[in-house]
C-alpha cells in the first residue's frame, strides 16, 4: 500500500525551495501518516498565506467578512499549529487536532465554514490507518456533508459549492484503484478550479462585481498548495511565484444600469404578485418580506418604473438607487491600479532578503522584486531566474545579499534571455549600499561596477547565536553563545550582545565611518536593543545611530556601518 498513500515531500515547507526534481525522498513509514497529513496541510497553509491578499481583494462588497483571505489564514494557521503539537502521529489524532485548532481559531464566516469542513474530514479520518486515495476522497465527502449542515439556506456559488464539487470529483476518481494521492489531489485541485470559475454564473452579485467567490478561491488555493507539496513544488512565498499566481478573475458588465432597492409597506401585500409585476422591469430581482413590509432589489435601466409600480401597491421607503456603471468603472479603475502601473524601468532589480523589514527597506530603495531567502533558505536558480524574467525591464541586476546565494545567482545569469548581471553582495546592508549607487542614466556595466564598489564600502556586522561549538579563525565558540561576524567572518564571541558588537565594530574600524544602522531581528528584545544602542553611542559618540526594524530571522542584530 505504501506507494498509493499520501506521502510528504519531506521538508518542503521550511528548508527546501529547490523543487522536486533534485531530491527524491523515500516514503515515510505508514505509522508516520499523521505527520504526512500535517505536512500536507502546512503546505496548503503556506500557499494560502501567500495568496491571502489576492483573496482579500476579491471582497469587493462592503460585507462584514471583508477579509476572507485573512480570516481563512488565521483559522487554518490555528489548525496546522494544533496539528504540529498533536500528541501522536496517528492520523486520527492529528486530524482531531486539526479540527480542534480550526474550531478554536475560527475567524469570520469563511473561517467558521473552513472549521466545519475540517471537522467533517477529521470525523472521517478518525479510525483511518493510512491515507489512501479512497480515505482521502471519503474525508472530502464527509467535509462537504458536515459543512452543508451548518447553514439554514445553502447558497450555491460559494465555498460550499466548491467543497461539493471536489467531493464528487474525488469520489469518482477514487474508484480507480491505480490512482495515487498526488493524482487524486490533482483532480481535487482541478475540480475546485472549475467550481471557483463557475461561481459568478451561480451568484449574480459576483458576476456584477467581476470576481469569483473569495472563500471558494481560498479552498482552491489550499488544495493547490497540498498538490504542489505532493508533487514536490515549492509553496514557499516568494515574489516570483506571487506574480505568476494562478488566480481567477472574471468580468462582466451588468446589462442594466441602476441598482434599485426600496421597501414597500402596506396591508395584505402579495409578495408573489409584486414579484410578477416587477419581473419584466429588470434582472437580479429580489422580493422578500411579508404582507406588511416587502423589500425589493432590482437591476433596471429605468429606476422610476419599479418605484411607480411600488407606490401603486403600497407606501415606499428607504429608496436607494445606485449607478452600477459608475460602481463598475470605479471597481475596474481600483483593480487596474492594483499592481501599480509603473513606467518600465530600464534597469530592474531583484534582491534576496529574509524579513519583512528588510523587504520594505529594499523596496523603498528601488528593488522591484524581493525574493524571500537567506542564510537558512536559499532561493533556487529557477526562482531567481523566474523573478528576473517576471520584471518588465530588459536589464536586470540581481543582489544575492548572502554568500550562499551568490552561486545560484551566478548560475541564473546565462539562462535568461534578458541581460542579467549580478552584484555579489554578501549581506543585506551591502545590497542596500549597492542599491543607493544606482544611476539610471548609465549602462548596465557601469552600474554593476559602481554598485559592487558601493556594496564593498559598507561594513556589515551580524550578531547571532552559535548553533554548535567549534573553533573558527582561531576563535573558540561555545554552543549557545553570541557570535559577531564582520563581513561574514567570525570576529567576536561572548555572552553579552553589546560587548560582542563592540568588538566587531572595533575590528571594522567603526571610528572611520559616519553612520551605523542597527537592523533589529525578529528575536531582538527591546531592552537589549536599548543597551546596544547606549553601548555603541558611548564608545563611538561621533557615529550617527539609527535603529530600523529588519525583522530578519536568526540574526538578532545586523549592523551596517558606512
Amino acid at each position: 500500500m505504501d506507494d498509493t498513500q499520501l506521502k510528504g515531500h519531506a521538508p518542503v515547507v521550511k528548508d527546501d525551495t529547490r523543487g522536486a526534481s533534485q531530491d527524491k525522498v523515500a516514503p515515510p513509514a505508514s505509522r508516520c501518516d499523521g505527520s504526512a497529513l500535517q505536512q500536507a496541510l502546512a503546505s496548503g497553509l503556506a500557499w494560502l498565506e501567500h495568496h491571502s491578499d489576492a483573496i482579500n481583494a476579491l471582497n469587493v462588497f462592503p460585507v462584514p467578512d471583508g477579509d476572507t483571505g485573512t480570516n481563512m489564514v488565521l483559522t487554518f494557521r490555528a489548525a496546522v499549529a494544533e496539528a504540529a503539537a498533536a500528541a501522536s502521529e496517528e492520523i486520527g489524532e492529528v486530524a482531531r487536532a486539526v479540527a480542534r485548532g480550526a474550531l478554536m481559531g475560527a475567524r469570520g464566516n469563511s473561517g467558521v465554514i473552513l472549521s466545519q469542513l475540517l471537522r467533517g474530514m477529521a470525523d472521517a479520518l478518525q479510525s483511518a490507518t493510512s491515507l489512501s486515495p479512497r480515505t482521502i476522497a471519503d474525508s472530502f465527502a464527509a467535509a462537504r456533508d458536515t459543512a452543508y449542515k451548518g447553514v439554514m439556506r445553502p447558497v450555491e456559488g460559494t465555498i460550499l459549492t466548491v467543497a461539493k464539487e471536489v467531493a464528487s470529483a474525488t469520489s469518482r476518481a477514487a474508484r480507480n484503484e491505480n490512482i495515487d494521492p498526488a493524482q487524486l489531489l490533482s483532480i481535487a485541485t482541478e475540480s475546485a478550479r472549475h467550481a471557483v470559475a463557475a461561481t459568478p454564473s451561480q451568484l449574480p452579485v459576483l458576476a456584477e462585481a467581476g470576481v469569483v467567490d473569495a472563500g471558494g478561491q481560498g479552498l482552491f488555493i489550499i488544495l493547490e498548495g497540498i498538490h504542489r507539496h505532493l508533487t514536490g513544488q515549492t509553496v514557499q512565498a516568494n515574489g516570483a511565484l506571487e506574480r505568476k499566481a494562478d488566480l481567477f478573475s472574471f468580468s462582466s458588465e451588468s446589462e442594466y444600469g441602476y441598482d434599485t432597492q426600496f421597501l414597500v409597506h402596506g396591508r395584505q401585500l402579495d409578495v408573489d404578485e409584486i414579484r410578477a409585476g416587477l419581473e419584466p422591469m429588470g434582472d437580479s430581482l429580489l422580493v422578500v418580506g411579508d404582507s406588511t413590509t416587502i423589500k425589493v432589489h432590482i437591476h433596471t435601466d429605468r429606476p422610476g418604473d419599479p418605484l411607480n409600480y411600488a407606490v401603486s401597491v403600497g407606501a415606499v421607503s428607504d429608496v436607494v438607487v445606485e449607478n452600477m456603471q459608475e460602481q463598475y468603472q470605479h471597481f475596474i479603475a481600483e483593480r487596474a491600479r492594483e499592481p501599480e502601473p509603473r513606467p518600465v524601468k530600464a534597469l530592474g532589480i531583484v534582491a534576496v532578503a529574509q524579513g519583512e523589514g528588510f523587504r520594505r527597506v529594499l523596496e523603498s530603495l528601488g528593488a522591484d522584486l524581493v525574493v524571500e531567502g537567506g542564510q537558512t533558505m536559499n532561493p533556487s536558480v529557477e526562482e531567481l531566474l523566474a523573478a528576473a524574467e517576471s520584471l518588465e525591464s530588459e536589464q536586470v541586476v540581481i543582489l544575492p545579499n548572502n554568500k550562499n546565494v551568490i552561486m545560484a545567482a551566478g548560475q541564473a545569469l546565462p539562462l535568461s534571455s534578458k541581460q542579467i548581471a549580478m552584484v555579489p553582495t554578501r549581506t543585506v546592508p551591502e545590497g542596500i549600499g549597492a542599491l543607493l549607487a544606482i544611476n539610471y542614466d548609465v549602462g548596465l556595466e557601469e552600474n554593476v561596477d559602481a554598485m559592487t564598489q558601493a556594496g564593498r564600502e559598507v561594513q556589515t556586522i551580524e550578531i547571532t547565536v552559535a548553533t554548535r561549538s567549534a573553533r573558527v579563525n582561531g576563535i573558540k565558540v561555545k554552543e549557545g553563545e553570541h557570535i559577531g561576524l564582520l563581513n561574514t567572518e567570525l570576529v567576536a564571541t561572548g555572552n553579552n550582545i553589546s560587548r560582542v558588537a563592540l568588538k566587531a565594530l572595533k575590528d571594522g574600524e567603526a571610528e572611520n565611518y559616519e553612520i551605523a544602522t542597527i537592523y533589529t531581528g525578529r528575536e531582538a528584545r527591546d531592552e537589549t536593543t536599548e543597551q546596544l544602542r547606549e553601548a555603541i553611542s558611548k564608545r563611538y559618540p561621533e557615529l550617527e545611530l539609527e535603529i530600523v526594524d529588519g525583522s530578519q530571522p536568526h540574526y538578532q542584530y545586523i549592523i551596517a556601518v558606512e
Partner: protein
Amino acid sequence: MSNNGSIEVSPTAVATIAAEAVSECYGVVGMAPRTAQEAILNAIHRPPATKGIRVDLRPDSVVVDLHVIIEYGTRIVTVADNVIDAVRFRLEQALGTSALRVNVYVQDVRVGTRQPGA
C-alpha cells in the same frame, strides 16, 4: 423627519432585514421562539421569516434581539460575532443609522447526525 413629512419604519421591516442578514451567516441553523407562548403566537400571527427576532424601536436607537440556534461543532462566539456584524451592517445600510444594538441569544445548539467516535 424629513422636510416633506416623516418616515417610519416598522419593527417588522427591521426584523425582515435582520432575518435576511442572519440567513447569510454560516453556523446559524435556525431561529428560536423565546417562550412556548411566543412559539404559539408565532405559529398563528407572525410570519416565519421574523421568528425569534424582537425589534424594539426606541426614540434614540433600535434594539434587535436575535434568538438563534447554532450548529453543533462551530465556535459559538465566532458565529455570534458574525451574526452581530452582519445584522448591524445590513441595518446600518438600510436604516442609515448606527444607533443600533444587536443582541444575540444562543437559544439552542443543534446536534446533527454525528459519526461515532468523534
